[in-house]
């Protein structure tokens, strides 16, 4: 069956006074129906920008989707008119943002913000919208929903605001939800609540989910397939189990090695990745990770590696792993 979403060679650049920031530089991924994939990477790797690009929410004029294809259910999202794209947002594809405090309108009740989408996409009246909003609040686990639907965002706690955001996102029963760092700002116990909730809901509604995060633990628990991003490119992707157990890119291996694990005996010293992420305006020729890589060979400086299949359904963009020289696995 064809994937629900296919992103092909997406390039999104930002034109600033200091130069061109190549935030997303030729990224391809796909999401199947009912599947949860994860876009993992650190700040500046382009994961958020690529998700905003899908919804064409990149801030113009500075930001621009330069090239690529984004096929959603066969429709190229880049070729849609602005009106048609607006009909997609919230109805077919919706997004949960990282910071509910700034993503919610402080002067509208929670109920109205949920029903906004319903009024626009499903032609409901305000009354019907509010009733549905109440039902949705109950679904996301907010106690006394019939009362809380009239509350304002500042009357909700951080965790509850995120639940409200989830309610807004699922209101029109979209086929795809993008969750951009949905639990970064909440505590660990609330994070557990929210992620379990998101998992249950996506299972119940058979919605696909793109989970964007830098937290390797969350990815391991909730995603079936993983796409690892670095400096605007995907450097590795595959099934979560494969990527975690046999990483094919030094960056992935480095990340996994530098994170302390609660279930393993305590290591005497962590293995960090040395150096800093590169400046996206002045990316080096060749591999962007080379400067921090302990395994680089001369070819890494000259040519930028492309994603190749290293193992069945497991791809990496690295000259060293393509040549079968995966020394970092010997731990």
């Amino acid at each position: 069956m064809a994937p629900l979403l296919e992103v092909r060679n997406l390039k999104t650049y930002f034109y600033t006074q200091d130069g061109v920031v190549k935030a997303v530089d030729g990224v391809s991924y796909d999401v199947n129906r009912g599947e949860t994939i994860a876009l993992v990477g650190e700040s500046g790797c382009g994961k958020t920008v690529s998700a905003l690009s899908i919804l064409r929410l990149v801030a113009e004029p500075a930001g621009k989707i330069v090239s690529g294809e984004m096929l959603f259910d066969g429709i190229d999202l880049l070729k849609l008119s602005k009106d048609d794209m607006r009909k997609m947002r919230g109805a077919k594809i919706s997004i949960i943002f990282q910071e509910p405090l700034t993503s919610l309108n402080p002067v509208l009740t929670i109920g109205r913000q949920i029903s906004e989408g319903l009024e626009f996409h499903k032609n409901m009246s305000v009354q019907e919208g509010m009733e549905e909003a109440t039902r949705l609040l109950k679904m996301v686990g907010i106690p006394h929903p019939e009362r809380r639907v009239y509350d304002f965002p500042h009357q909700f706690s951080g965790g509850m605001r995120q639940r409200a955001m989830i309610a807004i996102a699922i209101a029109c029963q979209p086929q795809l939800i993008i969750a951009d760092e949905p639990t970064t700002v909440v505590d660990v116990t609330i994070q557990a609540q929210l992620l379990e909730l998101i998992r249950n809901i996506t299972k119940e509604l058979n919605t696909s989910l793109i989970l964007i995060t830098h937290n390797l633990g969350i990815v391991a628990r909730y995603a079936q397939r993983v796409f690892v991003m670095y400096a605007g490119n995907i450097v590795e992707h595959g099934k979560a189990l494969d990527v975690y157990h046999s990483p094919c890119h030094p960056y992935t291996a480095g990340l996994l090695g530098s994170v302390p694990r609660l279930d393993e005996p305590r290591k005497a010293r962590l293995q960090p990745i040395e150096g800093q992420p590169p400046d996206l305006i002045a990316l080096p020729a060749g591999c962007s990770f080379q400067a921090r890589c302990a395994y680089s060979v001369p070819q890494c400086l000259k040519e930028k590696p492309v994603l190749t299949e290293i193992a069945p359904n497991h791809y990496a963009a690295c000259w060293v792993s393509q040549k079968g020289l995966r020394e970092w696995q010997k731990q």
Partner: protein
Amino acid sequence: MAEAIIEINNLAKYFPVTRGLFHQAKIADVKAVDGVSFTIHKGETLGLVGESGCGKTTLGKCILQLIRPTSGEVIFEGRDLCELSDKELVPVRAKLQMIFQDPYDSLDPRFTATDIIGEPLRIHNISRGKEYNDRVAELLELVGLAPYMGERYPHEFSGGQRQRLGIARALALQPQFIMCDEPISALDVSIQAQIINLLDDLQQKFGVSYLFISHDLSVVRHLSDRVVVMYLGKVMEISNRDELYKNPLHPYTQALLSAVPIPDPAVEMKRQVIVLQGEVPSPMNPPSGCVFHPRCYRAFADCSKNVPVLADAGGGHQVACLLYETSRP
């Protein structure tokens, strides 16, 4: 047992909530820290974990007297710091330093790196001229930065590098104790490991004690010798590190540990997560009895009536929970 360098006894900080047009009358207190006691030993790292609103940051600031506690004692070098005036604290401050969470806010944007690191030296009039420059260069190298970078301004450094500057600044006066307030939360994962290693190395080298405040349990486990778990201004459990992670006694600690996903899909597929109900209550209106009881999955009738006392459960492991209190008079 190593000697204690800081002893905290029944520390409390209440923030009054006032209302009124002309005269601000107090209607309630936000009990940010409500009776906390523990000891920090020489050369050890004491981890302080808890979620937002538990009071860990306020507690840290109270220890350093950046916020003056409402009651309780902070004993350092035989004196109660709470009793000392700001002026009397100045020489003491040289020995108790702090690293902040936000690498963007904790450095004055108008100071060069050299100015920032050297500020403690200037305030305490410690060195001048060549001696000063040498010391600053030494500190820069100690944290892994090149000496020429001393001319640069904070906005020219990355987040991880700014934290290194903050650490160098904290070390300038060779303190005995450094309070680390979530020093790596704002950094990228790959940089976090660098800073953790740096803190570790510096402790090996200088024997400085850390109070490591964090909400990240995996990191705390890596760095700490002992761990204190806080919830809503009170201590729930204290234990040495291995014991806490292997055998957590308090239901809150158990839930906290269970909530941390392990970066391994095979493990996660089989693991059950304890999902707590409800939200953290407001510190203005804490629950009666045990503050954790409304969310506790092992609560029973007494929990809403009696406040559990932090008691020894064997081998230095202390827990405040009615489940472990053998008898009540």
